[in-house]
């Protein structure tokens, strides 16, 4: 359904080129919940914005984003507008993504009005049903964003994302800023949305474990591992994936040594090598993406040639 091939996003800045996404390839199959995890600065949000072509003008994008066979990178702005919201929905982070002066009901109705030319009354009825379904309460469509709590606001954003019945949903850190009990409610909420194809971006490992079918780990603009969720949590392959899991409180709270390198001048070869306990001489050249029984890892440790 969504195939990404050698996608690169570079930003021109005064300090030099920032390679935010550097040669990323992966595939999201129909009905799959594909989760992209990575820490701040790993390029995961930029990747999602590149798919929907929401990046600022100083971004240089190359590679392919194939959505149902069409390359989104090459589409014109007019065609892109028909895809955004209608075929691919974007669920943004809950902080400040709603317009404070419009009712939430209107904001959820907007994509439907925009794409379907339905009359207002039936759109309104549809939004009320959607609010009931997601547990927001149909009587709250006339409320404004400030009248909702953080968890409820996230539900509204989900309602907004699915109101036009898109084929693919991209959610950007849906649990950011919510506390633990609210997070499990968001998991239930996404379960409710059903077997839709989703690309979820998060740094919340517990959330990913509960929701995802497949997990891709991003580090410094590159995908270093793609694994099914169960295997990822029981037996992570890449040293960075292991480090990430070991830093969870329940798994020993062991920090990864060192700091993330600068994206303007990242180390040559494997970008994790300065922080990796298994680093060797050959890590100075770029490791290949190795296929291990359907799992993918970008690390020399798994090279059996």
């Amino acid at each position: 359904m969504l195939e990404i091939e050698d996608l690169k996003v570079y930003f021109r800045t005064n300090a030099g080129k920032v390679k935010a996404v550097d040669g990323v390839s992966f595939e999201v199959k129909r009905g799959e919940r594909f989760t992209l995890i990575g820490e701040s600065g790993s390029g995961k949000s930029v990747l999602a914005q590149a798919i929907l072509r929401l990046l600022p003008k100083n971004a240089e994008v190359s590679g392919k984003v194939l959505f149902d066979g069409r390359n989104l990178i090459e589409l014109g702005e007019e065609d892109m507008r028909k895809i955004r919201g209608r075929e691919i929905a974007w669920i943004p982070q809950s902080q400040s993504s709603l317009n404070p002066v419009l009712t939430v009901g209107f904001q959820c109705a907007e994509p439907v009005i925009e794409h379907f030319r339905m009359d207002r009354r039936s759109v309104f009825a549809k939004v009320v049903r959607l609010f009931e379904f997601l547990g927001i309460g149909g009587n709250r469509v006339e409320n404004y964003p400030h009248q909702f709590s953080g968890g409820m606001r996230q539900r509204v954003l989900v309602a907004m994302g699915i109101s036009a019945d898109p084929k693919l949903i991209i959610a950007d850190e849906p649990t950011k800023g919510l506390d633990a009990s609210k997070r499990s409610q968001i998991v239930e909420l996404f379960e409710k949305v059903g077997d839709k194809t989703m690309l979820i971006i998060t740094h919340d490992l517990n959330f990913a474990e509960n929701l995802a079918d497949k997990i891709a780990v991003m580090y410094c603009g590159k995908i270093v591992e793609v694994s099914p969720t169960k295997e990822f949590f029981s037996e992570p392959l890449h040293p960075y994936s292991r480090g990430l899991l070991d830093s969870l409180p329940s798994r020993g709270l062991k920090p990864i040594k060192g700091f993330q390198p600068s994206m303007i001048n990242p180390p040559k070869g494997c970008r994790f090598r300065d922080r990796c306990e298994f680093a060797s001489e050959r890590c100075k050249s770029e490791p290949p993406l190795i296929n291990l029984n359907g799992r993918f890892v970008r690390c020399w440790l798994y090279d059996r040639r």
Partner: protein
Amino acid sequence: MIEGKKIRKVFKSGIFGGKTVVAVDNVDITVYDGETVALVGESGSGKSTLGRILLMLIKPDEGRVIFDGVDLTKLKGRELRRFRTKMQLIPQNPEEALDPRWRIYDSIAEPIRIHKLAGSRNEEEELILELIRAVGLKEEHLNRYPHELSGGELQRAVIARALTLNPKFIVCDEPTSMLDISTQASIVRLLVEFQKRLGISYLFITHDLELAEVIADRILVMRNGKIVDERSLH
């Protein structure tokens, strides 16, 4: 040792204070020397308000705060200020904790200047250099502004600032909830290391029960302004 006895705080809002919210409702709490107490609860349960009352940053409506045998609620201005050096806050959002128009150096130096801990400029500089090395920052970070640091680096700077006055009690108000997981691990390790070295006691406010179980000696659960559960871990 810090003790809160029968603490109550009501917030009033609306015209003429028509709406009231009981943020902290008749709470008894004790944090012993060198102990880490985790205060967990959902957002809005009153845990941050309770933490700030123990630091006397919010005046309680009722109840007393006793620090090493002295009732802080009875103290005024200058007398209270003496105790301020012994109690510090590490807030949730490091981006908002530091003045955006000050260099990191000046933010860390501010408490030293207010309480006149350094005799000269050189002495102040030595103190600060020692501190930032201890929290894992480099000298070059001192000349930067807050927006030029990452979240983890900023939180280290905030911790350095909190440690300048050699406090005995620190309220950590969700110090890692805005940080990445691997950064969270290193910040929590840092806090634990300082506790071992300096014998500080922590009130660690969090909504992450897993984290609380790893770091705390005792866990208090707060709901609707009351402490509803207490558990010892070691």
